[in-house]
């Protein structure tokens, strides 16, 4: 198991990138700050697997929590509402 970059509770910023290849980071979390909830495991890399690769080596993935008010400037519902997304480590920077 490689050394993990992030721990639960870390504040992270999602990279604001739009690579030409398949990726599963939704646009609305890019450039947004959230909190790492937990390391959820090592997973095949869907970004290379989508283009004929094996998806190896497996990559670390984290569940990240965002405040809805951080994601949506006009969020009209409760300020305590949250959103969870699973992100590969390479999409995250320390914030």
């Amino acid at each position, binding site marked *: 198991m490689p050394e993990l970059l992030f721990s639960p509770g870390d504040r992270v910023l999602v990279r604001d990138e739009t690579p030409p*290849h398949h990726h599963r980071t*939704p*646009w*609305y979390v890019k450039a947004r700050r959230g909190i790492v909830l937990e390391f959820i495991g090592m997973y095949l890399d869907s970004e290379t697997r*989508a*283009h004929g690769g094996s*998806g190896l080596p497996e990559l670390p993935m984290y569940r990240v929590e965002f405040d809805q008010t951080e994601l949506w400037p006009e969020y009209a519902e409760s300020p305590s509402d949250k959103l969870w997304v699973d992100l590969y480590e390479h999409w995250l920077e320390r914030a």
Partner: protein
Amino acid sequence: MPAVHDRGGWPTDEPIDRQEHEWADWERQTQSLRTVLDQKGIMNVDELRRGIESIDPGEYVSTTYFERWSASIEMNLVEKGVLTTEEIDERAAALRDRWGNPE
């Protein structure tokens, strides 16, 4: 603007249409064809998704869910050299003729 498949937060106030359509047999077959292609290592889900995401945006928004699967499966099978566009053209036309719905 986000890619056409990246739909979170797209502007819309459309209510959720909760009516569920009755599945056509070809849709059920296509759902299972994907399962079989995955099991046999011919096309995985990531490849299916990439194919769907590369559909022309105009087609993406104007076709049904399984029509998009059909387009992606075709894209993948042709790219991998498993089938050719021409033989799919020919057989699809024959099927449409047989069922009396030429287009």
